């Protein structure tokens, strides 16, 4: 995603990695420092106007509309608000407030001073946000249009690539470019290479020319090759954008009048826990793990779509999703040493199933549709999270339907057979329930459901599991159906779990991340899996190589007046 105009920053010596602040994902349009969100009937406009002095971490200026994580957190907020607060918006125009500069991409100086882990997490979040933009176009009838009123370089062009349409001003000098390879010795990190060939179908030799030509291409060639959809002179630029927005809005099936305001989350946080109404996380720093419990709704679902909408952010599936989303982001960014997440659920299975059913019954409602897709995106966040996830299924748990996705997303599932005799011998043994929710609405990035992924290459097992929808499966049945890793009775359960978690915490975190990422994504490649797998893996390798991040590497030398010095050995 990195790129820059030549004067983005005049680098001095690269400072050592700055102390990383605790990152907060809470924001709202009235607090944005870098974006402006305007809604005008069916068309919204998000305008990038990065506050140069508004970097999340000291040590760099966000010149030329270059961005850091803080800028992207606001963008993510805007994308979410457009979907939930503005059912009337059917097209979104993304543009810049700067003259002749749309966006210079990720800030190079920021990247130069960041730790590897910070860079990787930053890329992951920005990738998820761009996927979210595509998701809005595809599933919400909210078409994003990039109005490039100036040069879009590197990450700036990648932002545009996430939009459905790209229009570049034809002023004789503005270009689109991916200058990472020639200038910085790294890759465009938010899907640029992938989207150029996979989404926009640019021929690979032209893509090769494009990605090695630092100044990029102006409008005419860019249109000809498919890098953008149109280029128009300044005089008619606004008009052309408006035309496209209206056309997109006219084709949208998005229907809704009153939006749901994303009020601030009810979150309490201490050194050892993060708590929301329905999601609680206990941070065990000594054992390097987080114990996450998702709670079932306390009341039955509201009667109809109108009442669902009236509940808004308090509608249980919405509330749980928001809380999980926030928790995942915070743990991922701020708690990098807590390497194992233990996933539990608690509450009434029937209540969960009632809501689960309602999500299907009201699937045509715009708000319910948004909730379903939000939960889908949140589960996808889990899939690409570099933490070991262990689901623990005990009496009192409610892994049913949509909540069962949590267990299916986990790397392993441990289920107690029977009850804890010494704790509550009269408890009902744990049961899990598969529903249609496990059969389509929450696919992974590879396009498969987690159930399909689990039974990849075992069609009979998949069919057998599909035959169990709606049934309460106790430990034996769940084990028999291949839905849990181990079903153990209480004689072994706690000890086994303790040992498993301790063992996990002792293994190399790097090897685990790589192993888990390989195991989680079976089957076909998609744009998303290529970005999170192939592109990210290569980028991370390149980031670590001296050619990029060594003292004489291109990333470190950028802006110093010296080019990177490369070890010319091909690996």
């Amino acid at each position, binding site marked *: 995603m990195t790129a820059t105009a030549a004067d983005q920053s005049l680098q001095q010596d690269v400072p050592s990695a700055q102390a990383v602040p605790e990152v907060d994902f809470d924001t709202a349009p009235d607090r944005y420092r870098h974006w402006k969100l305007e809604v005008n009937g069916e068309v919204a406009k998000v305008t990038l106007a990065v506050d140069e002095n508004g970097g999340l971490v000291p040590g760099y200026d966000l010149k030329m509309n270059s961005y850091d994580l803080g800028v992207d957190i606001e963008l993510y907020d805007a994308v979410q608000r457009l979907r939930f607060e503005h059912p009337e918006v059917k097209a979104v125009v993304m543009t810049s407030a700067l003259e002749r500069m749309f966006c210079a991409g990720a800030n190079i100086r920021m990247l130069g001073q960041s730790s590897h882990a910070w860079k990787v997490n930053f890329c992951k979040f920005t990738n998820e946000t761009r996927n979210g933009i595509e998701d809005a176009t595809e599933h919400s009838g909210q078409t994003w249009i990039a109005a490039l009123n100036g040069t879009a370089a590197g990450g700036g062009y990648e932002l545009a690539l996430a939009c459905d349409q790209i229009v570049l001003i034809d002023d004789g000098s503005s270009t689109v470019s991916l200058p990472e390879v020639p200038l910085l010795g790294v890759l465009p990190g938010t899907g640029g290479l992938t989207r150029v060939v996979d989404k926009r179908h640019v021929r690979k030799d032209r893509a090769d020319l494009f990605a090695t030509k630092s100044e990029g291409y102006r409008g005419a060639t860019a249109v000809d090759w498919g890098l953008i959809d149109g280029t128009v002179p300044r005089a008619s630029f606004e008009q052309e954008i408006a035309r496209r927005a209206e056309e997109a809005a006219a084709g949208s099936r998005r229907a809704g009048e009153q939006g749901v305001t994303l009020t601030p989350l009810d979150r309490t946080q201490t050194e050892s826990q993060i708590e929301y109404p329905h999601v609680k996380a206990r941070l065990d720093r000594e054992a390097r793990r987080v114990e996450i419990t998702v709670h079932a709704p306390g009341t039955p679902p509201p009667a109809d779509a109108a009442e669902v909408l009236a509940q808004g952010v308090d509608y249980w599936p919405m509330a749980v999703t928001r809380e999980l989303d926030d928790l995942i982001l915070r743990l991922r960014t701020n708690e990098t040493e807590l390497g194992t997440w233990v996933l539990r659920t608690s509450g009434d299975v029937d209540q969960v199933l009632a809501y689960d059913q309602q999500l299907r019954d009201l699937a045509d409602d715009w708000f319910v549709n948004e909730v379903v897709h939000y939960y889908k995106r949140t589960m996808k966040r889990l899939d690409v999270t570099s933490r070991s996830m262990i689901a623990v299924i005990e009496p009192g748990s409610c892994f049913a339907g949509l909540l069962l996705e949590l267990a299916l997303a986990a790397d392993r599932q441990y289920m107690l057979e029977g009850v804890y005799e010494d704790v509550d011998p009269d408890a009902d043994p744990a049961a899990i329930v598969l529903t249609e929710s496990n059969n389509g609405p929450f696919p992974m990035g590879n396009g498969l459901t987690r159930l399909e992924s689990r039974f990849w290459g075992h069609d009979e097992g998949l069919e057998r599991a599909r035959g169990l929808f709606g049934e309460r499966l106790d430990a034996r049945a769940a084990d028999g159906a291949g839905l849990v890793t181990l079903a*153990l009775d209480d004689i*072994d359960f706690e000890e086994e779990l303790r040992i498993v978690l301790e*063992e996990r915490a002792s293994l190399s975190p790097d090897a685990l991340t790589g192993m888990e990422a390989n195991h989680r994504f079976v089957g076909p490649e998609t744009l998303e899996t290529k970005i999170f797998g192939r592109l990210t893996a290569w980028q991370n390798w390149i980031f670590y190589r001296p050619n990029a991040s060594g003292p004489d590497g291109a990333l470190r030398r950028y802006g110093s007046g010296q080019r990177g010095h490369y070890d010319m050995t091909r690996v």
Partner: protein
Amino acid sequence: MTTDARTGPAPTPTGPLSQIDYSERIPNNVNLASDRRLQRALEGWQPKFLDWWKTLGPALPTKDVYLRTAVAVGRDGWAHFEHVPMEDYRWGIFLAEQDPDRKVNFGKHKGEPAWQEVPGEHRADLMRLIVVQGDTEPASVEQQRILGNTAPSIYDLRNLFQVNVEEGRHLWAMVYLLHAYFGREGREEAEQLLKRNSGDLDSPRILGAFNEETTDWLQFFMFTYFTDRDGKYQLGTLKESAFDPLARTCEFMLKEEAHHMFVGTTGVQRTVERTAELMKEHGTDDVFEHGGIPLSVIQKYLNFQFSVSMDLFGSEQSTNAGNYYSSGLKGRWQETRRKDDHVLLDDTREMNYIENGKIVQKTVPMLSALNLDLRDEYAADCANGVRRWNQALEDAGLEERLFLPHEGFNRRVGVYANHHVSPEGEVLDDATWEQRKDAWLPSPEDRRRVAELMVPEYEYGKFAGWITPPSTGINDQPVEFDYVHLAEEGLA
């Protein structure tokens, strides 16, 4: 009958009711009666163990045997003698007394409290160590299964059975650890301990020496002297483990192991004494025709058993051994008595290896050579017994002496594997080795002639002609005591 609204009435029990009180049947000091989890695990395992004992334990039918049974860990409790039918032997579970202040004495956790639970980080390694140790225990019972048929005396027969039941108890000790601390995987490994069998081509015991046939009593004595001594040294390292239940288990096992050493030491000694008598009486080395075992054949048996037992220590240089040490899983022999930092990161030692047909030395990091450290301790201990046997020769006025072969002789593991070294330590080429090895290792003909001497002697107080009686009996009983009552068919 209990009826529950949710589940309905309980089904009527079928099959025989268990009469076994496990806390009574399994003497223990691990509070078995109060541990539901362990009890249930052992309930599942005990019938399998008994099946194994009946199928692969001692083949000679007996009514009962005068056995030492551990009924408690105290001074009086661990050596309690009585006549018991072997299948009713009370295989108990005993751990040495716990020291609540015990610390880890070596490695990177040195100074921290000893572990009362298995740390997840070390589960796999600890389980492997316990499984390997546990695998050897039943293996030797299997190897010695038919020896009772040729026992040179009732006294020796009793000693054989004592060794056998105690190996069985040592298996219980390891199975206890697997059951108590390693969950389901531990139980599966415990079952596998009974499924692998010595010499079984499809499912052999883990270590090579435990798949060798025990053909005769001389080999049995050599086995208990040399191979059980390896066990003693392995137990000695596990006794130092940071995992306290393992340490305490092994500490107690070492007490019993001493008896096995005794059987080996005195067994070889009595054989040597008889050979010396015959040599003097007939003025010849070849005492086969006079009903004894020639000293040269005893030396060959010694050569063989010593060399295969040396292999049990593994490669001289071992990353695993270093990791086990640094992690606190397995210490050195007499760890706490050693005068060093017990971390060894900067220490080195010399080790032999073969280069260009010569045995030369190199300096290696101590941590990498802990197997060698243990093997050296072992070899020094082995030399004590040899000195004792030579004393018998000297007392008899003979010039001949037994000796331990060179550490490189007949080795299949470590730096000497793929080389040939004579008992005196010369490096040999293949042809020379092939030509001379029958002079150093028991040939089939040697074994055949030894086997010919192995005729049972079941009359109380009588001894086969190739061995002298012991000077005293067991537990202050006379030598002619009725240590074993054979079953009727055993006499036929």
